[in-house]
């Protein structure tokens, strides 16, 4: 009788990478649903295109690296990268832009660094930064959140047949962008915030989207897929730092609620900055990481060239992740 030789432990909790990735995708559903409610089918199509090309890119690398395609694609990480990247895109993003961005994320940022778990930078955010710099016109193509009205035609979108003059009629800057331009031009903050675009607490549609991502994020916390350290420290830092400037000059700067509810702060705090591969894993390291992302996000928003700063803040903090881990090791049992 021959018996297999294995090493202890022989039991396993049943947790799997695939399961974690699918749960992260599930936690994104409320946010995605609300985005589509306001911006039409565009965001969903972006995600589908992104997922297809992410899997394609991953499969190509697996072929080149002579690895088992199904085994590696089934980890689900490419799908999460695709979803997080696509969520950041305007609803009318042309499919080729989505494809280029997501292939860059999967092939260059992840696989060229060694694949799952080896990348230094958050793939979705690195890809977002790349397309933002490379295709500024397409990346600014946000619209008024009309909802699921007749103005959105999925096939027209897919075939890139929305003529510029039609698009001009529906395009609209995001609240972050709008406030940035107008307050820099000297308009009083309070007056700007009274516009329809700014909704009840910070941005029409955007505040609801933020709430939906917040709910999904809380579910991740409840399922212990993420720990509280990064979301709490990040959100608190954004609140305090933007609040400090608001108190100093309320006419020039937006209130902290505006900063929390607009752009990528909430989804960033729960879904992006918490990416385990590129964030620290010690508790003090996570807190410092969250604080760093929070400060950089607000500073880029207030004085940077871009309306939002979450992507660049995350990428900058990714660089110091090994350092944070190195200097925040826990005390080992029995060592004084």
């Amino acid at each position, binding site marked *: *009788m*021959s*018996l*297999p*030789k*294995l*090493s*202890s*432990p*022989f*039991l*396993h*909790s049943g*947790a*799997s*990478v695939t*399961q*974690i990735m699918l749960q992260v995708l599930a936690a994104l559903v409320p946010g995605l649903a609300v985005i589509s409610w306001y911006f039409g089918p565009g965001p969903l199509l972006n995600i589908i295109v992104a997922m297809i090309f992410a899997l394609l890119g991953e499969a190509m690398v697996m072929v080149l690296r002579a690895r088992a395609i199904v*085994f590696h694609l089934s*980890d689900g*990480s490419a799908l999460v990268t695709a979803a997080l990247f696509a969520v950041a895109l305007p609803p009318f993003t042309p499919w080729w832009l989505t494809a280029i961005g997501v292939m860059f994320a999967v092939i260059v940022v992840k696989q060229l660094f060694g*694949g*799952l*778990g*080896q990348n230094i930078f958050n793939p979705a955010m690195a890809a977002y930064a790349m397309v933002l710099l490379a295709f500024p016109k397409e990346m600014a193509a946000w619209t008024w959140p009309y909802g699921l009205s007749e103005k959105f035609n999925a096939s027209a979108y897919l075939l890139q047949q929305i003529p510029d003059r039609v698009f001009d009629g529906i395009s609209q800057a995001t609240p972050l962008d709008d406030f940035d331009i107008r307050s820099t031009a000297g308009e009083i903050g309070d007056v700007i915030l009274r516009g329809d675009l700014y909704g009840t607490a910070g941005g029409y549609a955007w505040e609801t989207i933020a709430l939906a991502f917040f709910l999904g994020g809380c579910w991740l916390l409840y399922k212990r897929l993420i*720990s509280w350290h990064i979301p709490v420290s990040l959100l608190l830092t954004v609140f305090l730092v933007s609040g400090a400037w608001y108190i100093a000059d309320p006419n020039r700067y937006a209130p902290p609620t505006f900063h929390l509810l607009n752009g990528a702060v909430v989804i960033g705090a729960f879904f992006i900055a918490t990416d*385990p*591969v590129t964030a620290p*894993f*010690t508790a003090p390291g996570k807190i410092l990481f969250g604080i760093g992302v929070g400060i950089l996000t607000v500073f880029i928003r207030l004085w940077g060239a871009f309306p939002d700063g979450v992507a660049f803040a995350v990428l900058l903090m990714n660089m110091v992740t090994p350092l944070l*881990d190195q200097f925040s*090791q*826990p*005390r*080992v*049992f*029995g*060592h*004084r």
Partner: protein
Amino acid sequence: MGRHGAFRGGVHPPQHKTQSLSASIQSVAMPRILTVPLHQHIGTDAICLVKPGDHVLKGEKLARADGYVSAPVHAPTSGTVIAVEERPVPHPSALYSLCVVIESDGKDTWTTLTPAEDYTALNPSALRNLLREAGIVGLGGAGFPSYIKLNPGLDNPIDTLILNGAECEPYITCDDALMRERAAEIIGGLRILRHALQAQQCVIAIEDNKPAAIAAMEKAATNVDFPIHVQVIKTIYPAGSEKQLIYTITGKEVPSNGLPLHIGVVMQNVATTAAVFRRIAYGEPLVSRVITITGGAAVNAGNYRVPIGVAVSDLLGLKEGQQPALLLMGGPMMGISLPSMQVPVIKTTNCIIAVGQGEMPVSLSFRACIRCGACADVCPVSLLPQQMFWYARGRQFDRVQEYKLFDCIECGCCAYVCPSRIPLVQYYRYAKTEIWAQEREKRKSDAARQRFEARQERLEKEKRHREEKLKKRKQALLDKSPAADTNQSIAAAVARSKAKKTPSVDPDRHS
């Protein structure tokens, strides 16, 4: 003694304890052949005292302890020694080791046993010696010779004696059964240990998933003239690990390179304590123990009192036509997988698990680490398992040690929760083994270098000596003819050489 709360980390694997707890402890039929390894403990192998053909009685010493950290081995039954040879022993690599093979005579006759009538009359040293000669080692799984733990030395007064009845590993129930049925023996052993250590307080720690054992121990503890505290602890793996349990009970951390006695604590397993009692009260050396047989492929799940040396194949009843997917000795978290059923039960065997098909994952493929940190969250020692894995895999052994590899207790919590199913503990064992091998190599090369340097030094010294001697001689020669100037000495030398060349008859030479 207040509750200090649990240690950090830990996991809650499914218990699987009920299937082996349906009946009380049973005995087994004495098999014809018993194989008794000489290495059943931590430390050096015992030295064999018998040869093939010898007739031995049950309890007779087969091998004596070799040095301080070692333990003697006794005959588990009466019979004839038929071989003293290398046989497969319980080891994951199917290692062979020296064993005394006994053919039972079926009579199971005890040798003359000498109980200690009044152990309180014995001083701690004499008491320790009795236990040492009885071959008693830690039965919880480690197999550390118990008498050493009873010798803390004058610098380490023992405040607390803790009996470990936590039994936190899934499947295993032998300590539970023993506490239920032999509580008096355990309390008897506790009295003896307390006397040997002069301990101030006594605690029996039991996980809260064993209410019957807790009740039995509490009942037995009431008839004693000193306070015994039965402390119920939360069921969490690895609550029974020595350092973690001491922390749970006392709130004190055993220092990284230290022993429990350095913080005034001694811990003994409950089964070990019962064995101590049997030695002192009945004179019995350690020749049998209670083990759990369980697992999906076993038909005879339960607890058994088993003579040391019985082959696993003689104990385990398998379901018809079913080959176990795995055969484990010890628990599923820290046990070893046996390569065959032809290995004997030894002193540290607490459990045999015949794992049914599909009962435990036997997948060998794993994914890359996603640094999720689940391993660090459950590590009871606060290590960073993912970093240790990273460096162990990259063979950066100095870095692994910086991450405190040698504080790892190999409990397996990290691998249990790892979503990538990385065999983390295997990597740590690998790193430890490599480091030990490197250190051995280094010691060897250091010794060689020292030898070489010593030789060089010796040669140098000899050379120096020679030169000095030469110089002295020269000096002495010069001193003898201090006035002679160079020309004179040259002339003298020429004259000498001429004289040599001139053939002359030397009367002495030809005499």
